[in-house]
């Protein structure tokens, strides 16, 4: 049997050649624009326009032009602050809700859950004006709260925690109760550690969404001095002039992309696991 498999092995690989070629082409198309971003960030605008795709020596110059034109440090720290607060708050609130909906479920809670799911159909552009008025009324414009409040509780995250907690061992909960553990104690001491991979996946999604958000911050964080602007707003400003310095622009895009890329590479596996709902 094993011999036969080995003999089959090479012919199988041969049959896969078109697959490999296709995948290589798709991979190249997927990666190239990002490679080009890195390369362009190190070239001056003339070389970028000329179509140079190798690395150049203008990285420092581009960085200097960028920091002279925009407050890069503030943009980065704003984005970090907003994204971190949003991620922590969303993870806590939504996991608590998912825990409550799944492990304490009854007819009424199931019905309420169905109602909450309707919020998935609510487009951001439809709530943007009333929410802007609300934030303006509460004097929260240009504060972290205006940024995070509408994004903390999402049906998507609640559903994710709810579905992934289907495999949570209920017998353990009973045992803990007999030992005198409170309900919130069960959440912190048992649910949290068991659901680690779901938390990781939820954190990746939420952090990326928060970091990449554009429409909502443009509405509520657009103080004229730019003191509350996020990275996507900052780089969008760079390309608004009549003459765009491509080297400078790509340096900005690079800074805007690095954090999410790091998150992506470090937590990619947990991300995939979290989506499948495989809790181990």
């Amino acid at each position, binding site marked *: 049997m094993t011999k036969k498999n080995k003999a089959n092995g090479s012919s199988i*690989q041969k049959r896969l050649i078109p*697959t490999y070629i296709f995948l290589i082409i*798709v*991979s190249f198309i*997927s*990666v190239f*624009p*990002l490679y*080009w*971003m890195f390369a362009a960030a190190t070239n001056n605008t003339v070389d970028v*326009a000329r*179509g140079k795709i190798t690395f150049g020596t203008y990285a420092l110059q581009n960085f200097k032009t960028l920091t002279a034109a925009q407050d890069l440090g503030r943009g980065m720290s704003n984005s970090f602050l907003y994204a971190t607060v949003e991620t922590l708050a969303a993870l806590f*609130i*939504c996991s*608590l*809700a998912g825990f*409550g*909906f799944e*492990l*304490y*479920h*009854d007819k009424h809670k199931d019905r*309420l859950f169905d109602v*909450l799911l309707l919020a998935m*159909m*609510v*487009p951001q*552009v*439809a*709530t*943007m*004006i*009333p929410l802007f008025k*609300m934030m*303006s009324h509460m004097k929260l414009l240009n504060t972290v709260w205006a940024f995070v*409040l*509408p994004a903390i*509780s999402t049906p998507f995250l609640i559903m994710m925690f709810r579905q992934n907690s*289907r495999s949570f061992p209920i017998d353990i909960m009973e045992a803990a109760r007999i030992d005198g553990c409170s*309900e*919130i104690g069960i959440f912190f001491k048992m649910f949290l550690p068991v659901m680690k991979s779901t938390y990781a996946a939820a954190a990746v999604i939420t952090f990326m969404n928060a970091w*990449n958000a*554009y*429409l909502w911050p*443009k*509405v509520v964080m*657009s103080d004229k001095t730019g003191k509350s602007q996020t990275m*996507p707003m900052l780089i*969008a400003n760079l*390309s608004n002039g009549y003459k*765009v310095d*491509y080297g400078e622009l*790509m340096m900005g*895009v690079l800074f805007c*992309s690095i954090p*999410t890329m790091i*998150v992506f*590479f470090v937590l990619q596996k947990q*991300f995939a696991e979290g*989506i499948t709902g495989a809790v181990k």
Partner: protein
Amino acid sequence: MKAKKMNVTGKQQRAGWIFLTPATVLIAIMSFYPMIEAFFMSLKTGSSAHMKWQVPFWKNYYHMFRDKLFLRSLGNTYLYLLIEVPIMLVLAILLAQLLNNKDLKFKGFFRTCVFLPCATSLVSYSLIFKSLFATTGLVNSILVGMGIFKENFNFLGTPSTARAIIIIALIWRWTGYNMVFYLAGLQNIEYSVYEAAKIDGANGWKTFWKITVPLLRPTIIMTFIMSINGTLQLFDESVNLTAGGPANSTITMSHYIYNASFGQGVANFGYASAMSFLVFIMVAILAAINMKVGDKRD
């Protein structure tokens, strides 16, 4: 859905309610309430503090369907939707199917590459594509260099190519994202199911349609709804890749609504709300149709 047998006491029930209260309250205040308010605002006119009821109250809606620019933004959004979503989802399923092959080598590498565009923000990739397709950009210099074009072509300054580039950019950004959902779905299908199909003499094509697609159906429906939802709300690309131009020929609904409420010029919250309420109705209808279609094939 399996029913769990539990003897939950009243105290525990209360604890359950407490756990889901913060999330429920936030959704009510941050989604449902603004949605209702948006509807009432859509019957008014003016901006911020000075809003009056429209006479007649449906005037904003009446005006909407006579507003050429709005109709164009509607048409653009549907054009992007109808072309981009099918291509992207088919490509995503195909890639997932190819990457789910047990005998394939470098699977992790390919998967990471295809998924990588998701690591960029919508504004970032819009600006990257804007630069690539600029009149003095890489694509032009390659095409001119190879002699395909005689002189640099203004891709983003020509309505048809500008729209095509938005679609290409969208496919580039979102195919890997959807593929991950399918890959996760495929991994839940036992390999023995495929083995059995092979023994029964089913070929790849048949296996795909008879096993993969039916078993992936919930995932396909979910990605379909997500994509429709996302495309109907397209904003970042329209603003940053083409700025809605040339001459508003690529503008999307969300972009137009933003311009009407927070852009330059006189803000018209009532009219913007009316347009945004239409977006809501479309998202809801399409999602409902999708659910119905999904249920029927059971």
